[in-house]
């Protein structure tokens, strides 16, 4: 898939993705990586410059109307219409997707119960919290019986508890057989909910696999974080090590090496702790590293 915008910006430079039925696949990348462009092409909102994309075998360009019958979307940065209620979101969207009246009432109820908004169904969105509003939008996507859900940063701006509620709903949907394409720049989210993920940067895919497989793409398995007078600690000749303000983060391949560094730091009176590398560490390494100079 290639997308070049009118102003010459190359948003996608040959992304090749295959998503299995019934899995939650995440596109992970920084702002401007091309995630939303990819989602918008798959959801038929945007035409690709070249390349082909299929949803359940239907071409998103030439068979868009067939695609529409199988997808539901949550766009990026979507706000709720303040005078709508969660019920109206769930019910009207089901009706527009062709669900008959009585069935639409049942699916709207099911969707609202799934996102935990049934009790609040008749309150206007203007009176709901940020997390509840976002869940109302997700309910509109769930109420349709669509096989494929395309969710563009659905938890953006939510607090940790609201985010986890949404994650729980997404995993439940996967359990019920839905296929979900999620975009996010939240590494924890990608790690927690994805069956597989792809890291994209500057319109190109730089890694793909299960969260564990992607974490295995770099040799380092642990990180040692030092805090305190870190200038006293002799800098290592390792370009992957990172300085973030008054913290020195070192990446090592095994536990013994990590333990040695920790002992050395503790002897020097520094605070130190060891943890396994995170998806974010892998992402930073694969995406070209962190700019130590500017930090």
């Amino acid at each position: 898939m290639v997308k070049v915008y009118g102003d010459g910006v190359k948003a996608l430079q040959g992304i090749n993705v295959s998503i299995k039925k019934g899995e939650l696949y995440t596109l992970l990348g920084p702002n401007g990586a091309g995630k939303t462009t990819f989602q918008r092409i798959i959801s038929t909102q945007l035409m690709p410059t070249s390349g082909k994309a299929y949803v359940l075998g239907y071409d998103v360009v030439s068979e868009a109307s067939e695609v529409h019958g199988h997808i539901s979307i949550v766009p990026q940065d979507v706000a709720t219409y303040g005078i709508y209620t969660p019920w109206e979101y769930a019910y009207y969207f089901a009706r527009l997707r062709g669900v008959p009246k009585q069935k639409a009432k049942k699916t709207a109820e099911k969707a609202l119960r799934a996102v935990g908004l049934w009790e609040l169904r008749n309150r206007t969105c203007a009176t709901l919290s940020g997390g509840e509003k976002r869940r109302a939008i997700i309910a509109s996507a769930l109420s349709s019986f669509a096989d494929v859900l395309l969710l563009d940063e659905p938890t953006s701006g939510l607090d940790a508890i609201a985010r986890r509620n949404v994650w729980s709903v997404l995993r439940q949907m996967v359990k019920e057989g839905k296929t979900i394409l999620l975009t996010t720049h939240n590494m924890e989210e990608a790690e927690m909910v994805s069956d597989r993920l792809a890291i994209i940067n500057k319109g190109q895919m730089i890694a793909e696999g299960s969260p564990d497989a992607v974490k295995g793409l770099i040799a380092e398995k642990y990180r040692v974080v030092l805090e305190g007078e870190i200038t006293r600690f002799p800098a290592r000749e390792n370009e992957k090590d990172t300085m973030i303000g008054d913290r020195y983060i070192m990446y090592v391949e095994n536990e013994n090496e990590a333990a040695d560094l920790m002992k050395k730091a503790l002897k020097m009176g520094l605070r130190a702790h060891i943890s396994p590398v995170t998806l974010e560490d892998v992402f930073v390494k694969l995406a070209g590293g962190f700019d130590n100079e500017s930090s």
Partner: protein
Amino acid sequence: MKAVENALLIAWMKFYPDFRRQPYVIITQAGISAGPLFFILLSGSTAALHNGIVGAMISIVSFLGLTSAIHDVAQDRYVKLREMMVAMPVHPVSYALGVALAPLLASVPGLFCFMALAIWLRILSLASIGLVFVALILGWLSISMIGFTVSTYLTKVPPFMLNSAGHLLSLGLVFVPPVYYSESVLGAFSWISYVFPTSNAASLIRGYLGLSTLHFESIMSHWLTLIGTALAFSFLASFKARWRER
């Protein structure tokens, strides 16, 4: 059939929650169209008042149809209903009709008030009410489709400019042409009444209400122009409107 059902559903979605939770919008909307009548009333001319009532009837249906499409684009920056519908089994014309029908529903109480006033002043008879309705609907359809088509080209324009665009289009298509006043005022430029869907509808309605004398040729020309523009702009909305982004 599905397209019509979707248009009605979108109209209901856009009308009912608004109407139920902020019913005063109906009074505001009628007030905008009734505004010029106040100044006409001050002039003391009965003929001008009669023409003004015709203008208010046309204005309330077409002004709202036009601005609602533009307002919809501005609002969609945040609520993205249109964006979500592009990815749904909804035809752009269903959406355009729905967006246009919603304010039409909201304009019904105001329209009935203006019609009742016209009946009370004995300028509107039950015999001509059918043709008046048809002219109003064709004018509304043309203007709404113009609004929708234009709005689809304004998706990247900042919201404050969108509102200005809506106001300018309203001035140019509803308030400045011979809608609230007779085209005879324009003298040699009275042909302008054939240019705008609103003024075509106004000329016909004035003719049926006996406020002006229209020859058979003029009546046919106005009807043909009105039907032609309604079809042309519906066609344009259907085929030229930018629904999917390129």
